[in-house]
């Protein structure tokens, strides 16, 4: 038994070139499958953990998914705003414990700017109810003060005390609000949520930088210097969305109905959990397609292994006949072939795992910067181990065919040489 396995190893080593190519195919395929699984998992994680402790997200009437996208993920923009008096009406509703306004539309070097209340930092929760924490500094207190998400600070190298200017709109080269610079007063600790990518300023600041603007451009001839803005009423007339926390969760459906039927203007209230699920489901088809495709790639890789082994059998007829003549049982021959296939699969899977690790280390910054997906280097999860196991099992199946053929062949071929 041990001798047979040793022979199988030596024989495989003699054919290391062809087997190596099959191995590389399997390694690439399993790295791909693992990567898809990893990205899927991490994306879902970033997704479902992005907001918690908020009972309702309220915006102008659109789709729930769209509302979540612009209010929570800073992706896309609102088609219309909600009026300030609507905000006040909801905020003062007896069932409401707290309400935080959100005002979007400006940016800083590609990072979204969120105008809000300082309460935001107290009420916002993510993951399983974790509050925001400050890495340095504190919430904004004055008009021209800003609090940065961890990623913004890291990517742009800002620290508290630095001065930044905002840009109108979401394009990096849009018109600047450079007459009214902000001071960074706080940097948040990393959360793995869209908060990391946002610049937070007060709602008043958003009004202030647009005092001398109209219709998305500075008013010609009108300049209101930063030190004079306090003379104006900085109460906004409109906001983009609001986050609502209730005194009792039991009221959530009642209040949702109330807001959706609000008479002042058409509003939409969604429960973040429900909306996130819906949002995830729209992505799930993409995710499943990707997964199916990479599973197919793995199958192709393993089919390649079967083909390699079967093709190799032809050159090895003689070798196997000699082994048979020397007393190797057909079972031993079967074992040799199957072990070889399994070995190549196992090494391929190992190499694939290593490849994934290398890929994550080199690509993680890119994925973070361009897609906001945080990829972490970690040992395979239970799910991934199950995937690896199923690749191995399929590899075993793929090696059974050549093994079985060798079993049959060794008997009939026997000692009669034919070439």
């Amino acid at each position, binding site marked *: 038994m041990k001798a047979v396995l040793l022979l199988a190893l030596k024989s495989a080593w003699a054919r290391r070139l062809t087997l190596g190519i099959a191995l590389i195919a399997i390694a690439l395929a399993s790295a791909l499958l693992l990567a898809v699984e990893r990205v899927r998992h991490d994306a879902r994680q970033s997704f479902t953990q992005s907001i918690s402790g908020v009972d309702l997200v309220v915006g102008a009437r659109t789709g729930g998914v769209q509302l979540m996208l612009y209010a929570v993920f800073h992706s896309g923009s609102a088609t219309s705003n909600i009026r300030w008096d609507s905000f006040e009406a909801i905020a003062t509703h007896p069932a409401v414990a707290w309400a935080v306004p959100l005002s979007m539309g400006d940016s800083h070097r590609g990072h979204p700017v969120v105008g809000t209340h300082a309460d935001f930092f107290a009420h916002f929760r993510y993951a399983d109810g974790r509050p925001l924490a400050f890495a340095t500094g504190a919430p904004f207190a004055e008009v021209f003060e800003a609090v940065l998400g961890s990623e913004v600070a890291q990517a742009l190298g800002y620290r508290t005390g630095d001065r930044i200017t905002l840009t109108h709109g979401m394009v990096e080269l849009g018109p600047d609000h450079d007459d009214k610079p902000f001071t960074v007063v706080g940097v948040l600790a990393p959360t793995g949520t869209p908060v990391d990518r946002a610049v937070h300023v007060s709602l008043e600041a958003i009004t202030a930088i647009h005092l001398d603007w109209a219709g998305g451009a500075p008013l010609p001839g009108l300049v209101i210097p930063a030190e004079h803005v306090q003379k104006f009423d900085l109460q906004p007339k409109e906001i983009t969305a609001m986050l609502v926390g209730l005194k009792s969760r039991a009221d959530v459906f009642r209040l949702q109905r109330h807001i959706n039927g609000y008479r002042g203007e058409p509003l939409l209230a969604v429960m973040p959990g429900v909306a996130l699920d819906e949002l995830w489901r729209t992505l799930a088809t993409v995710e499943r397609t990707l997964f199916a495709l990479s599973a197919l790639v793995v199958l192709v890789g393993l089919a390649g292994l079967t083909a390699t082994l079967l093709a190799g059998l032809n050159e090895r007829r003689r070798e196997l006949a000699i082994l048979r003549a020397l*007393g190797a049982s057909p079972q031993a021959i079967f074992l040799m072939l199957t072990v070889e296939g399994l070995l190549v699969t196992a090494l391929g899977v190992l190499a694939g795992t290593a490849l994934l690790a290398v890929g994550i280390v080199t690509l993680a910054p890119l994925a973070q910067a361009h897609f906001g997906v945080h990829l972490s280097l970690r040992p395979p999860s239970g799910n991934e181990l199950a995937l690896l196991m199923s690749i191995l099992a399929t590899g075993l199946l793929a090696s059974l065919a050549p093994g079985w053929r060798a079993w049959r062949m060794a008997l009939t071929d026997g000692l009669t040489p034919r070439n």
Partner: protein
Amino acid sequence: MIALSDLVFRWPRQTSPCLDMPGFALAAGERVFLHGPSGSGKSTLLAVLGGVAVPERGRVELLGQDIVALAGHRRDAFRADHIGFIFQQFNLLPWLSARDNVLLPCTFSARRHGRAGDPPAEATRLLERLDLAESLWDKPAAELSVGQQQRVAAARALIGKPEILIADEPTSALDAERQQAFIDLLLTEAAAVGATLLFVSHDQRLAAHFDRVLSLADINRAAMGGEA
């Protein structure tokens, strides 16, 4: 030692049998030369004697044991224990060293391992006897010349003193001079271990030094003739 009776063998999808033999026998220690034209069924007969091909009918008695009646794995074990094979060519596992090729029967058969005494020492002794330069012993078999490979194959067949030696045209790839030298060597070694030798070839000129010469046509009723 070898006794065969009332044997019928046909390959799958063959209409008429390839072998149909009333019987023939080899005594212990006898060295027999069997010849017949190409395609007449010589290799097939050896496959049947080696228990690799199983006949439709008949008895194949080796050392008093009917191997046709044995279960498959017992037949494999019997072959490993008692029979040394040398083929026409491509005898060795090309990726294994000459020495390891010689040792192979000892890994598959505990009996041959035991009878060899100290197998590595026995392998060395045989390789020396067969005049293979020591520098070649640890080279992969694929790097040896055909003549060197055939000598390694002979050493492998002889290790562990099997009672039966079967050689299927082992000299067809050698030049005339080396053919005779190889056969002489094989005959001496077979005599030294007391083995019964069945040597098969289509070339009758090689028959000179054998105890007995048989023609397949004389013992096989299925006269398919062959084409040569």
